């Protein structure tokens, strides 16, 4: 039995090329149309991969042709595709499931996507005992790598760093209020990240009331007149500034009296404007936590560096599992193959085991 994976990802092709591939609905006849016993398609925004098990080798060009989206009349470009067989295929899937092959190293979204892909293949009967075993093992490896290493440590984007910091200060973000000063795209993204963690009270203030109103509608907040933004600092918990002002809008002298009135409540300031909207000395005030673009990016970079340090540990765990899977494949595969039909139907009806769901 040949185990293989043919795919295209952010490592090998740009988005323009990638978007040509990835059939949205995988039919039950996919394995037979390829001449495979089993097949499973993993289709995400960063990769399109087809995992298969077949008696005879299947040509890459044939698979690429099948993966081409319907309606694309251009010739498929097989050069952008990679192909892994046997151990390499197993290792690749384990790396993908662990987030080691992801654009954002260590991200966990891919694991959910792999589970969904497996579930779809199981339901339509395309996944049999080989892919079942392979994917169940991949989920187990991903869990182990997550718990035994620090591959997920820290946040690696400015928005997620801001959310992480807010959680470290306030704990639960529900009931917290945020003031967006300036209607920039970066502040909007950061605000959305905070909203995703439960922030409901969003206020937007901008020199142009129209832009403030527009952004307020986008983020389900309310517009505040620009003249009163300093007054708002008495009430809000988080201030995100991104104006185009040439001079700092907020200095220690202007903020100190406001802070003295809210001594028991911290103020988290995210200054993503360049030049900065908030004077650095503001961070010296009790209860004020000021982060500018550089400090947020520094933290994201540190997190990424820490995650990279964990790659070797993750690869070690993966290598152990690849060797273990090889043993099963060599010793038990024959038996599995002979009982394939019965196992196939049993697996197809069985739900995903709770421990790995």
């Amino acid at each position, binding site marked *: 039995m040949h185990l293989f994976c043919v795919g295209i990802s952010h490592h090998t092709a740009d988005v323009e090329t990638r978007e040509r591939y990835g059939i949205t609905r995988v039919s039950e006849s996919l394995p037979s149309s390829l001449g495979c016993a089993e097949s499973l398609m993993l289709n995400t925004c960063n990769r399109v991969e087809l995992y298969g098990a077949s008696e005879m080798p299947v040509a890459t060009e044939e698979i690429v042709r099948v993966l081409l989206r319907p309606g694309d009349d251009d010739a498929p470009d097989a050069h952008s595709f990679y192909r892994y067989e046997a151990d390499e295929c197993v290792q690749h899937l384990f790396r993908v499931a662990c987030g080691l092959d992801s654009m954002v190293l260590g991200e966990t979204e891919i694991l959910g996507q792999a589970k969904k892909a497996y579930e779809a293949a199981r339901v339509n009967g395309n996944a049999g005992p080989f892919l079942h075993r392979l994917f169940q093992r991949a989920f187990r490896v991903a869990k182990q790598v997550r718990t035994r290493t620090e591959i997920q*440590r*820290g946040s690696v984007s400015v928005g997620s760093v801001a959310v992480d910091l807010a959680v470290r*200060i306030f704990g639960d973000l529900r009931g917290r209020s945020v003031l967006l000063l300036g209607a920039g795209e970066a502040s909007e993204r950061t605000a959305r990240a905070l909203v995703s963690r439960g922030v409901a009270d969003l206020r937007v203030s901008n020199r142009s009331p129209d832009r403030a109103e527009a952004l307020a509608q986008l983020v389900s907040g309310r517009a505040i007149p620009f003249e009163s933004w300093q007054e708002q600092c008495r009430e809000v918990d988080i201030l995100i500034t991104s104006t185009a002002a040439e001079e700092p809008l907020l200095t220690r002298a202007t903020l100190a009296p406001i802070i003295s009135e809210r001594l*028991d409540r*911290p103020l988290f300031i995210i200054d993503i404007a360049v030049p900065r909207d908030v004077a650095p000395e503001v*961070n010296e005030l009790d*209860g004020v*936590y000021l982060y500018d673009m550089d400090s947020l990016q520094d*933290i994201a970079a540190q997190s990424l560096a*820490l995650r990279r340090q964990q790659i070797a540990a993750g690869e070690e765990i993966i290598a152990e599992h690849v060797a273990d899977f090889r043993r099963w494949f060599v010793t038990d595969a024959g038996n599995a193959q002979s009982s394939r039909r019965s196992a196939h139907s049993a697996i197809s009806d069985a739900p995903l085991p709770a421990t790995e769901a």
Partner: protein
Amino acid sequence: MDRPLVVAATVCFLAAVVRTLLALRAGVFRPGRFNFLAIACGFLLQTAFLSVRGNAIGRCPITNLFEVFVFLAWSIVFIYMLIGPAYRLSLMGAFTAPLVSAIQVFALLAPVDVPHQMRARANPWLEFHASVSMIAYGAFALACVAGLMYLAQERQLKQRQLHSAFQHLPPLHDLFTAVTRLLWVGFALYTAGLISGFFTGEPLPRLKMICALAVWLFYGAILQGRHWRRLAPKRVAALCIIAFSAAVTVLWAITFVSEPHPL
């Protein structure tokens, strides 16, 4: 022959300390079940000791400095067991274990487990006064621990060093809530202990009275400052550490200087 129970309890607490140190060395410092279980085992052993000793002497086992220290350590762990899981501050155990270990190691090594010579008849008011005051000290100790954790987290956030060994500390808000509640619990118990002291029927040593009142006033002032929002959380946290250090010194001093209770 009840001391082995204290030794075993101390071993449990030290196991939690070692585990924390190993985690710190590896650069990972996160809440773990091991610490909580080790401390829970230590707590059971402490409780067993206090029960055995209490039965043996026929009263609350705070008749000498050894028993006082063990009772204080038990009070700290008791409050931790109540507060830690409730406020998701299991990490507090990593800070509590060294404190409790230090108290018990000192109690075991110092020649302070001497049976009290003056055995008077049991006095329930006196026992209530002493035990409630001890538990209040336990709450103040935990407030001190939470204060330390608050200052560590605050420093990380101010200095923008989020990848230190203490990166898994609880949020500032949760820590400050814990500090405030522990202060109120400690203050209420201490007040009860102080008032019950007047009902013991024993002569009240003047120095002891003054020291106890000073501690009460100190904590009262911190709580008042917090209530009126005149004190920033960072200052409340720092004052908790100062107040507990002062309170322990006072406890030590009055136990040495004043005539011990004939419990």
